[in-house]
């Protein structure tokens, strides 16, 4: 009894929306006196035209996957976790401590431990707002915003006062030991006979992120816990009726959310920088919100949205390299993509629905 066929819903509408975003973006590029065709060529070529480009695109996408999933899980329990940024920062701290202070024999063990450490730190950072929401009714939106700021201060303290190697200018930790360096996609794909650039930072964390997607999908749609999270998110009163404890679900959903955000550290801290720098998260926590919203909080949608944003980031970097277009152009394009695929979705959907209902009537 749907108004349109599923393919139109899933493929056609997003495509038209993206097209609209692209058209407006082109107008903006024209407006600042540059050639949009050339710009698009550069972006597509730079981000998708080589394994090198893909390596960067996927690297960024990995970050957004983790934070996007984090926001999604909280959304399913009807909580708006704006704190992904802070949770990811603390996750970075967790990963760094694990990598720096424990001698690891092999990267695989280190990855498991660092992912765990990052998840625990991220979850811990989400736990306080979650507890306050569950027990004291303090609005999670405010507390997570506040915890982002507090996280920045905590990280700053650790990096400037405790973890900075003596004599270094950089508020950053020392480099992680060789043993914990993660294999890049290049190393993973080479045995399969696939040539992938070894210059790009995409690494095994990408696979971890995909595993996280599958995990979240199973969790939310295939387990009792996910059932309870979704029930609670849809109706608190209903959850109470079904014997689902609001306090428990609030805590669990936020802990999972925080843990996912924290695990981003395996990619940016452990995989790319191989040390913890002050602004390692670079707003990925906030992009995660956009990614989750665009992906409709579904892991597959989140995956596609994360790739799209990865593309924009990498494509934007290429633009900045070879043209004089200010880097803010990419921010504008991002905004337009979010606007058209997310907020103005119905602008495309409503007329299409009418067309499909009319077509069906015509046939019937």
């Amino acid at each position, binding site marked *: 009894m749907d108004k349109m066929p599923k393919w139109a819903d899933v493929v056609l509408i997003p495509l038209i929306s993206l097209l609209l975003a692209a058209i407006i973006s082109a107008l903006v590029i024209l407006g600042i006196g540059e050639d949009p065709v050339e710009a698009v060529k550069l972006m597509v070529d730079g981000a998708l035209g080589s394994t090198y480009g893909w390596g*960067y695109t996927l*690297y*960024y996408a990995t970050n957004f996957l983790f934070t996007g999933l984090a926001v999604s899980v909280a959304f399913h329990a009807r909580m708006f976790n704006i704190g992904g940024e802070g949770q990811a920062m603390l996750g970075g701290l967790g990963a760094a401590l694990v990598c720096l202070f424990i001698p690891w024999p092999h990267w695989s063990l280190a990855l498991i431990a660092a992912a765990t450490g990052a998840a625990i730190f991220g979850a811990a950072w989400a736990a306080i707002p979650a507890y306050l929401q569950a027990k004291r009714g303090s609005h999670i939106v405010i507390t997570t915003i506040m915890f982002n*700021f507090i996280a*920045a*201060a905590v990280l*700053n*303290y650790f990096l*400037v006062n405790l973890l*900075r190697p*003596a*004599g*270094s*200018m*950089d*508020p*950053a930790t020392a*480099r992680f030991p060789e043993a914990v360096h993660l294999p890049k996609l290049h190393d993973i794909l080479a045995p399969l006979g696939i040539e992938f650039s070894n*210059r*790009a*930072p995409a690494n095994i964390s990408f696979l971890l992120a995909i595993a996280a997607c599958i995990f979240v999908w199973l969790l939310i749609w295939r387990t009792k816990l996910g059932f309870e999270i979704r029930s609670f998110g849809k109706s608190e009163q209903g959850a109470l009726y079904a014997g689902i404890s609001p306090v428990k679900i609030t805590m669990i959903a936020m802990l999972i959310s925080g843990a996912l955000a924290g695990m981003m550290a395996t990619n*940016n801290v452990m995989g*790319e*920088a191989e*040390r913890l*720098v*002050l*602004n*390692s998260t*670079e707003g990925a926590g906030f992009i995660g919100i956009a990614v989750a919203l665009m992906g409709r909080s579904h892991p597959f949608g989140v995956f596609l949205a994360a790739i799209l944003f990865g593309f924009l*980031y990498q494509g*934007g*970097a290429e633009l*900045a*390299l070879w043209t004089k277009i*200010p*880097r803010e152009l*990419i921010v504008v394009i991002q905004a337009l993509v979010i606007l058209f695929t997310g907020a103005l979705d119905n602008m495309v959907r409503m007329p299409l629905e009418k067309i499909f209902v009319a077509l069906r009537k015509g046939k019937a």
Partner: protein
Amino acid sequence: EPALIFDLGGKFDKSFNEAAFNGAQRWAEETGETFREIELQSEAQREQALRRFAEVGANPIVMAGFAFADALGQVAADYPDTKFVIIDMVVDAPNVRSVVFNEHEGSYLVGMMAAQASKSGTVGFIGGMDIPLIRKFACGYAQGVMAANPDAKVIANMTGTTPAAWNDPVKGSELTKAQISQGADVVYAAAGGTGVGVLQTAADENILSIGVDSNQNHLHPGKVLTSMMKRVDNAVFAAFTDGVDMETGFNVMGLANGGVGYALDDNNASLVNADMQSAVDTASAKIASGELAVHDYMSDDSCPVLNF
């Protein structure tokens, strides 16, 4: 074709990056040639930009900012024929020129001037993000203040602990007002875009301010006591001029070789009297000759005259 990479602050930060840009621009105007440039957007792009420029044959590649050290350490060996120049940090590789500045020396000089210009005996320092480099500025400044007036008081504030601290003029402005209410009548801003707010408020409130990195005296003529010049522009200009055949190695830009200094021009001529100028010039000469040593915060993470 040479290339210049700006740090995350962006090329028009009115101070550090902009100074680098000015140096490159000057070179371009004088030689009529062109150069490549990029403003970074993310940490991951550091290495990316270095490699991409190296791969298309840009040479030399100059990067403005200590944060590049790590990436350059990874990349330099892969492109032995490319010359790299890093500013504000030392990277030990055969094809790298490391340019560091003795900001504490320049800050010492403007600190002396601040103490002399101050009527209240209280002067202020407003830093951007709280990182060791900025503490280095603050510590040199405080030493200069103490040297000129041992009874003076230095109020030092940092704007924040996140990169946003480089771009919050409103907070810079409030910090200035807060320092004024504590008696400060000269403030030194080492805070990137935040400094714009500091200088503006100082001018509005009729106290003196001190600019940083570039010559900022012109921003509020007659209101900016001086600027601590960090001649990043010269470093970039020199690198571009030296070109592919440059000498690599460790390059300290201090008072001795004009790498740092204070700005004196028409805009602040009326503020700097002869006494002041001669005292500062004397100190400058002593520092240059090594007779006077200014403590460098980064050498031991502490400052003898200022508590962070």
